[in-house]
């Protein structure tokens, strides 16, 4: 718009002033439109039902039906070892893709945060180890989550003043330090042995360790985490966080305390990683230093990158592929070389699509004509 039209608008301040409407700028091909339109529809206010039907598409319903029916058609092994595990690692990877995709901060300590929550459940709750305190799960789980949030906040507070490779290094250092702490400390963490027989409690008469209930437990919290992030990124906090990712200096000059926003994002990621950590210790039934070793710190990053970090669903897609490969690669190739297959698939995906599976999906959608793909040009 020219300054002339702008000034006229400033002077009149009324709708329908005699200034010619400006030509709309054509959107880039394939670029997703801002979703703020759902926040502020012009004219008549649509009903809740219309808003809901606009937000839910056929593919959402299909995915929902699929995940609800899966355990009834799949084997208990697949339900528990593949699906439930993928949901748990998806939740932990989601905590990283939220930080990295929406906040621009790559933290390698997410598995450590999950491990802290897991260790809290094992140490404070019941396990096969005598040193466990045996507290009621109703007290243990909130405390474990609080520890995860607090630890993540502290990690954030330490690392947000750095950028890029330095953030990765400092969070890796924290992760490795935690690994050696739990490995060498016997009085609290029981050293190399860790804790065995850490099982989910029986609540409402249901044994949550059974594949079917545990799958739905993991599914519930994975979906809760997914929708929470979907919600959060459209709130003022989420929009501001994306602003700090794109231009921290400008956010400062708009009145935002960038450091505080970043630390708060770490706290949120701590909650997600903590939830994943609690579920993971119940899933494995044990926790040991190997659960928070360097390999798993990196694996969480691999899952997040593999799926794509520009949408919350990417973490779960990455986790599904990762767990499938980890579980079945050994059946496809000889035992000594199955890691080669896993590495090859990861390499192929990242080579062909730097945005992971989400980017691949967007490319396919754009090639076959749909304009509503989750694109690589936005991070909604």
């Amino acid at each position, binding site marked *: 718009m020219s300054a002339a039209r702008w000034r006229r608008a400033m002077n009149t301040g009324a709708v329908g002033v005699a200034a010619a409407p400006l030509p709309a700028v054509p959107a880039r091909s394939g670029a997703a439109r801002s979703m703020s339109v759902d926040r502020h529809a012009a004219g008549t206010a649509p009903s809740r039902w219309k808003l809901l039907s606009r937000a839910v598409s056929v593919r959402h319903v299909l995915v929902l039906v699929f995940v609800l029916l899966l355990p009834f058609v799949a084997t208990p092994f697949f339900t528990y070892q593949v699906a439930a595990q993928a949901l748990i690692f998806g939740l932990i990877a989601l905590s990283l893709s939220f930080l990295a995709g929406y906040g621009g901060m790559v933290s390698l300590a997410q598995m450590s945060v999950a491990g802290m929550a897991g260790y809290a459940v094992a140490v404070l709750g019941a396990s096969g180890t005598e040193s466990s305190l045996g507290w009621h799960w109703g007290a243990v789980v909130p405390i474990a989550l609080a520890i995860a949030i607090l630890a993540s906040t502290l990690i954030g507070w330490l690392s947000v003043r750095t950028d890029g490779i330095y953030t990765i290094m400092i969070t890796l250092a924290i992760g490795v330090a935690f690994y050696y702490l739990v490995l060498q400390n016997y009085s609290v963490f029981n050293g190399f042995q860790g804790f065995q027989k850490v099982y989910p409690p029986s609540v409402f008469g249901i044994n949550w360790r059974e594949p079917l209930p545990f799958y739905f437990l993991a599914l519930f919290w994975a979906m809760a985490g997914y929708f929470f992030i979907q919600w959060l990124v459209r709130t003022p906090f989420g929009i501001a966080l994306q602003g700090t990712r794109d231009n921290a200096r400008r*956010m400062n000059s708009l009145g935002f305390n960038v450091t505080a926003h970043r630390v708060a994002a770490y706290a949120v990621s701590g909650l997600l990683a903590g939830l994943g950590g609690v579920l993971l210790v119940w899933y494995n039934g044990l926790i040991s230093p190997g659960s928070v070793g360097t390999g798993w710190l990196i694996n969480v990053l691999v899952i997040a990158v593999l799926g794509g970090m520009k949408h919350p669903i990417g973490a779960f897609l990455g986790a599904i592929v990762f767990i499938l490969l980890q579980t079945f690669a050994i059946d496809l190739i000889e035992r000594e070389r199955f890691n080669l297959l896993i590495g090859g698939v990861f390499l192929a995906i990242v080579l062909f699509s730097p945005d992971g599976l989400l980017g691949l999906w967007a490319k396919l959608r754009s090639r076959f004509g749909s304009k509503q793909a989750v694109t690589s040009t936005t991070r909604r």
Partner: protein
Amino acid sequence: MVSISNLQPKRASSQEPRRLATSATDKSLMSSDALVLEGVTRAFGALRAVDDVSISVAAGQKYAVLGSNGAGKTTLFNAITGDFPPTAGTIRFFGEDITALQPYERIRKGLRRTYQSSLLFKELSVRDNIFMAVRGVGSGRFSFWRAGANDASQVATDDILHRIRMDHLKDELVGNLAHGQQRQLEIGMALAGAPRLILFDEPAAGLSPAERRELVALLKGLPAHMSFVLIEHDLDIALRVVERVTVMHNGRVLRHGTPDEIENDAQVQAIYMGGKH
């Protein structure tokens, strides 16, 4: 001309200006000087990009800082906003020493700026950009709740959108906008909240002659109580819209004066015409 009422949110409730306004102490409101710089210096190693600059901008005064490329004008702005805090000297904003404050704290006190090259959030929509500017100087920066349609910040956002005639572009990604539209959005964002002093860093850069004329009219039409400091290479624009001018050269103040005095100053002319200096 732009009236004061045009810069206030129109559809907001009567309480909204209070909710959105930045806090200001009675003492600072009574101060007649909006911005006072005393011996402000910004050094990068051995280079003193801004060297012992003292300037006083009265409340409501329209001010320009002129100088050739490399004179230290933008660095001076960065020192004022805290992007690159001064290495020496004092900055007072409406009587309050803000030298040690973080940039966001200065902004919340009613200081605003636009950037020489647009620093916008290109992957966010036009509306989100303005919404952030409104929230940045308002309340609820950490809110986990989406603002309802009747929320003061939403109303204020729509008001600015409407005022800068970008309603129809509100959902457009800023990266898709033309240069002139991005400049305009920059200024729209500077008007969010209750600005008391705006630093305009070359607002005419890249605008057509017609747009420049309209920009002059806009700057002249800003409310009487609102001060601004303008950096501008185009003397025709700068000297027409301001009451007082400081000319900088090599990081130091060369001249203070009225536009007439500056325009007729032989040394200033020499600098701008590329003569010896």
